[in-house]
């Protein structure tokens, strides 16, 4: 998508949310859902739309872990690192994922197909260790079931 197309999408979001009080988070969610990330060149437009300074909007985007300023890979994998999952081997699962994808947490796989992210609880703690791929939950994971799952989304060797 070109920069001007991205700006057009952002303006559309701003029009839809114009009447909402305190709408910055919903706006940022809409932009990220539409474009996959919040392009830095759109921040000024967003700021004007909500009557804030560019720095304030930048401050909000960077404060929240969910928002990204650069595109993710086609598939996003989140692996839970919190206590309940740790007790069932989350550290080993993450280590396996890093090896398999050839990247570390917060990075992209070697083939560019996957983004790997840590998560702090997915609410699946009774079926740990847990992860999501493109927001769909997967529980009671093992390195083997991880490989099988990733294979369904295209190979990454």
């Amino acid at each position, binding site marked *: 998508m070109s920069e001007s197309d991205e700006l057009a999408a952002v303006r559309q979001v701003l029009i839809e949310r114009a009447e909402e*009080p*305190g*709408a*910055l*988070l*919903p706006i*940022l*969610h809409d932009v990220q859902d539409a474009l996959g990330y919040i392009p830095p060149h759109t921040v000024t437009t967003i700021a004007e739309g*909500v009557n804030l300074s560019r720095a*304030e909007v930048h*401050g*909000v985007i960077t*404060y*929240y*872990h*969910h*928002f990204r300023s650069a595109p993710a890979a086609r598939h996003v994998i989140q692996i839970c690192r*919190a*206590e*309940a*999952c*740790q*007790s*069932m081997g989350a550290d080993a699962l993450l280590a396996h994922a890093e090896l398999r994808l050839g990247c570390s947490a917060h990075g992209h796989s070697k083939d560019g197909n996957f983004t790997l992210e840590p*998560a*702090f*609880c*997915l*609410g*699946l*703690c*009774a*079926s*740990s260790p*847990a992860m999501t791929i493109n*927001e*769909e*939950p*997967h*529980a*009671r994971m093992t390195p083997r079931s991880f490989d099988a799952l990733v294979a369904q989304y295209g190979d990454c060797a």
Partner: protein
Amino acid sequence: MSGLTIYVPRDSAALAVGAERVAERIAQEAAIRGVSFGMVRNGSRGLFWLEPMVEVSTPAGRVAYGPVTIDDVADLFDAGFAEGAQTHPLSLGLTDEIPYLKKQERLTFARMGITDPVSVADYEAHEGYAGLRRALGLKPEEVVQQVLDSGLRGRGGAAFPAGIKWKTVMATPAAQKYIVCNADEGDSGTFSDRMTMEGDPLMLVEGMTIAGIATGATKGYVYIRSEYPHAIATMNEAIRAAEAAGFLGENILGSGQTFWLEVRKGAGSYVCGEETALLESLEGKRGIVRAKPPLPAITGLFGQPTLINNVITLASVPLILARGAEYYRDFGVGRSRGTLPMQLAGNIKHGGLVEKAFGVTLRELLYDYGGGSASGRPIKAVQVGGPLGAYLPESQWDLPLDYEAYAAVGGTVGHGGIVVHDDTADLSKLARYAMEFCAIESCGKCTPCRIGSTRGVEVIDKIRADNKRVEHVILLRDLCNTMVHGSLCAMGGMTPFPVLSALDHFPQDFGLVVPDRKAA
């Protein structure tokens, strides 16, 4: 269509182990065999080691099968499961007779897994909206009095009496007031808010509507964490269903009362679960903690009086109104009234949701319900109350679960999350993790939390590396003391709880000499 109904959960934890594919497979297999049936995508009963747990309605009651994989489906049909035959090895018998479920005291979770989560008709057929109907016939003060008399305390962690907050908001005059539901549920080991929103969302909608009518608020927000996309979708479905049926919006049930409800999505920040940070986030800002006073009940969202309660707090209200404050208060012990949906998680054989009156012991939960560790190894440490809760050693597992009894030993009940670790756990590593988590998630407003947590990680690393171990333990305790007393909110103020409890009860994991208990 015959009267046959098959239930396959739509709860995330069931989906996470293949419930969607099992549902599809059942539909295919039934079509091949010419079996006609209705399928309900219910919430989960909360017996997660049995998910996907499929149920079939029979004249004797619902019969359960689980955990069902797609490869079992044809076999199940062969064994007559569609007629409720109980001969298949996966048959669990009548659902209501499963001991894990039968021994519980489900008040808030009474409908969980039983109804279609987004069907207003089904909800009403199971006592739903009885509370709102009663509330509409009472004066606001009378509704608030019911909440006060029930003894209900906030289930989100701080355990503040709900009725007092309600009264403050009711008594504060303003042109606009708000109800905010805290559905941020960031604690590891907790999922009862998620289950409620996915499995019985109308209960939360009803609780918030009652809160709006009682306090004079006409607008409500449910702030749901972004990690819960299914909960967000189901809440939105439930809100639309309630509006369509006249239970939400303008002139609710012809009463002249108005209440609108909207879902807002969080963005992956633990501190946004803190109520004032949550308000900042709802206002479109960075979720940084505000100093109190002013209390949100007086100056809250957009500067207006705002009632903020946790999901389970608000979801407990319909039943209190429907059955009366006394009915609810009669469960529990001491000043901990009613029930708590406790969440058994981590290294536990039978992880899931256990709703019991306060007063149950951890040992009962771990062994009578949980069946011991998942690994089969001895249980070593149990963290109760989320990432800011203490690690409890076996000597403390016989305490009654009760806010005051836990506080007396430096523990917290919090949101009722119970995370089990077996004897392979290294408590110095978990203590380090607690500090690291605080460093990642700190909102940065105050120094003890922002800097102290990073220093905490460094000091624990030195202890673990045997670098001036004894001196660094003294330094760590000092640092914890500063964080406890100098932090603005419980993030910095309670992170020392898991750290100090690990140090006190599991000194061997820090390479320290174990005190001779017999000599003491």
